[in-house]
């Protein structure tokens, strides 16, 4: 493939790709996400390949192992195009029938359709399933349509048009303005306006600047970033290249998980293909803009996802946080301006450039714009990756999308943000999903891990679980974090085992206050948040165990 040297060449290539494609050609899209992998989708994929061979359909039918479709609960998920017939919980034994009946015979197999447990209604297409129907899937919708390893698939769905637009129609200043105007806020947990961060890095003195994708996603119960990054890596990469152009950076870093082979493979393939096509590297699309990307893997500790620790790790040092009281967008990796955003933030960029800030700002609440990816798990009927516009109430997410609480149990609380987050009790279920509203309640959205808890949940035990996680995942550098968590864990363990003593709750509050105020990085500062939240709303559960 010769490198593309202009916007026109990119559009010509896109036309060629589309011309070559027969929209009526059947395609079997099998979810290759982490959840479906755990449910044995590799066997399903192999069964389809075998069956297609057996029926000599290789030239007439495509098989596509895609990224995560979202509905992990009902995996392995399979979609048959062009009719977009959606089958759930597919096993290798179903495969011959699917090929003969649906792919060749164009008949729907009723027993493989999703059945609504309340109405008994069957859903033929993904968008008929309540789990999908009630979402707004701007980022996730392409996951079932593209092969993550195929740049042509991404181009067929308009890929890299935003990059071309930024480079040739907008210029770097206007691209930055567009992101600012859209009020895209960082999805990693802080909710800081991405445009302002970009601007700080752009205006920071120095020639050499870096842009970074934080794809660490180390907290328990968070699996949305890997869904989009594994399933649609070019979408993240395109955002990164646009960001680099807007900021004036020529070197990017992707920092991601060492333990996800498919994610790793897809990223490397995406980078190689983008470079081959002239969308990365020297003189991108003939614009004169140069940009390269290096991939780094985490070292197996949660704190390495913290921005300053992550930057130290990229420098080749221990991933220990090091606040310099100067923003990393001014002084980060090797003391150069370094703009870090998480996977989902970068994934939002291309659509903002394509459809405009006004379109984007029309979605969501007054101060939280666009959609948010959530990892829905816990005591919920529909575990999976969910995308909703900000402003959707927690009730809608739990009941309309999540299908409610299994086994006829009542909802007790919703926990956001994993080990550094907080829980809100049932009475706040009508709260809209919003960075600031949720923060006020003591349950900031964080990166988007949403854990649903039923009436049987022991909130003290939940807190103990998170503290135990953190005591192993803190770097251990600073005293309030290392020693504070150690002591909080001891006391909470005692309470959870019914051995609480008078004064324990007050002591917990005192340690939490000191750890929150004096710790070095945000891990230590927020390590006590689940404790504070459960003390705020479920204090009686602690008190019941104090003797």
């Amino acid at each position, binding site marked *: 493939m010769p490198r593309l040297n202009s916007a026109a060449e990119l559009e010509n290539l896109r036309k060629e790709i589309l011309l070559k494609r027969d929209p009526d050609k059947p395609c079997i899209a099998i979810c290759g996400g982490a959840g479906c992998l755990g449910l044995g989708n590799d066997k399903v994929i192999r069964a389809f390949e075998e069956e297609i061979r057996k029926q000599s359909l290789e030239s007439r039918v495509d098989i596509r192992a895609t990224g995560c479709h979202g509905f992990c609960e009902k995996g392995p998920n399979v979609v048959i195009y062009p009719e977009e017939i959606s089958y759930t919980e597919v096993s290798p034994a179903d495969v011959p029938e699917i090929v003969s009946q649906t792919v060749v015979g164009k008949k729907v197999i009723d027993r493989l359709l999703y059945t609504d447990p309340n109405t008994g209604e069957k859903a033929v297409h993904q968008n008929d399933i309540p789990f999908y129907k009630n979402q707004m899937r701007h980022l996730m919708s392409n996951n079932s349509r593209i092969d993550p390893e195929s740049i042509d698939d991404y181009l067929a769905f308009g890929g890299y048009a935003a990059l071309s637009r930024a480079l040739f129609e907008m210029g770097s200043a206007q691209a930055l303005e567009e992101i600012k105007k859209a009020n895209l806020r960082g999805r990693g947990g802080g909710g800081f306006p991405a445009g302002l961060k970009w601007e700080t890095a752009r205006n920071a003195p120095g020639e050499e600047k870096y842009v970074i994708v934080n794809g660490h996603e180390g907290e328990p119960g968070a699996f949305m970033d890997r869904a989009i990054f594994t399933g649609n890596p070019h979408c993240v990469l395109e955002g990164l290249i646009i960001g680099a152009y807007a900021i004036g950076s020529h070197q990017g870093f992707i920092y991601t998980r060492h333990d996800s082979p498919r994610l790793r493979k897809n990223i490397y393939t995406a980078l190689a293909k983008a470079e081959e096509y002239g969308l990365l590297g020297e003189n991108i699309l003939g614009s004169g803009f140069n940009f390269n990307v290096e991939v780094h893997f985490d070292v197996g500790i949660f704190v390495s996802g913290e921005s300053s620790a992550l930057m130290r790790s990229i420098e080749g040092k221990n991933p220990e946080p090091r606040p310099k*009281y100067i923003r990393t967008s001014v002084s980060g990796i090797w003391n150069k301006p370094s703009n870090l955003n998480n996977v989902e933030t970068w994934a939002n960029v291309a659509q903002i450039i394509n459809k405009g800030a006004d379109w984007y700002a029309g979605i969501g609440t007054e101060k939280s714009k666009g959609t948010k990816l959530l990892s829905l798990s816990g005591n919920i009927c529909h575990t999976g990756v969910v995308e909703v516009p900000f402003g959707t109430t927690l009730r809608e997410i739990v009941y309309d999308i999540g299908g409610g609480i299994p086994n006829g149990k009542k909802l007790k609380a919703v926990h956001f943000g994993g080990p550094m987050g907080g829980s809100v009790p049932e009475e706040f279920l009508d709260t809209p999903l919003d960075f600031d509203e949720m923060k006020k309640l003591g349950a900031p959205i964080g990166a988007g891990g949403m854990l649903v808890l039923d009436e049987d949940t022991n909130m003290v035990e939940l807190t103990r679980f998170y503290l135990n996680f953190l005591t192993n995942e803190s770097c251990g550098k600073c005293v309030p974090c*290392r020693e504070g968590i150690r002591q909080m864990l001891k006391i909470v363990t005692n309470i959870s085992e019914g051995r609480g003593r008078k004064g324990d709750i007050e002591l917990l509050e005192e340690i939490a206050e000191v750890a929150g105020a004096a710790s070095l990085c945000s891990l230590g500062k927020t390590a006590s948040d689940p404790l504070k939240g459960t003390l705020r709303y479920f204090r009686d559960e602690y008190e019941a165990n104090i003797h």
Partner: protein
Amino acid sequence: MSEILLQIDGKEVKATEGMTVLEAARQAEIFIPTLCHHEKLEPYGGCRICTVEVEVRGWTRLVASCLYPVAPDLVVRTRSEKVDKIRKMILELLMAHAPDSPELKALAREYGADRDRFEKEPSFCILCGLCVRYCDEVKQKNAVGFIDKGARREISFIPEIAAEECWNCKECFPLCPTSYLQAAYHLTEALAFPGHRSKPRQASETT
């Protein structure tokens, strides 16, 4: 380097750009306690005992003075109810590990810290990292390092390096606030290279 005027505990203090609050305070003979700080080493910000209150644009923040840069008209308070509470708690947390460290005992008296507040887990090391960083930054030998993470973090001598380097150096010994380091070294020596002493170095080698 331009001169900066700031206020520490109500006193006008002169400093130069690039200095930390701790350096400015020490220069003005205002005492801020530290446990992990050393003039020859990069600021670390690990022990947090040097936490002070600063006022920035009307906002009060708690910061580590060993890392926080001076700024014109910065208002610093080295003691306050909040600061003292933090220092007291830090000392109590550390004294669960090293209850008899003279440095900790002296500070505990100042801040009213109760050495028995937390159940004893006498590891004797408070993980200030002075030995680790001195061996790295000053001696560039890395004979002693941190191992593991979180609450399981420890210092450990690397026998292969220690056997060659430590006998003639031991400059880290007096830095240790708890004397745990010496014990760790002797244990390493006893277990890994008993009786092995590298030859005293020639004068030309040590200069």
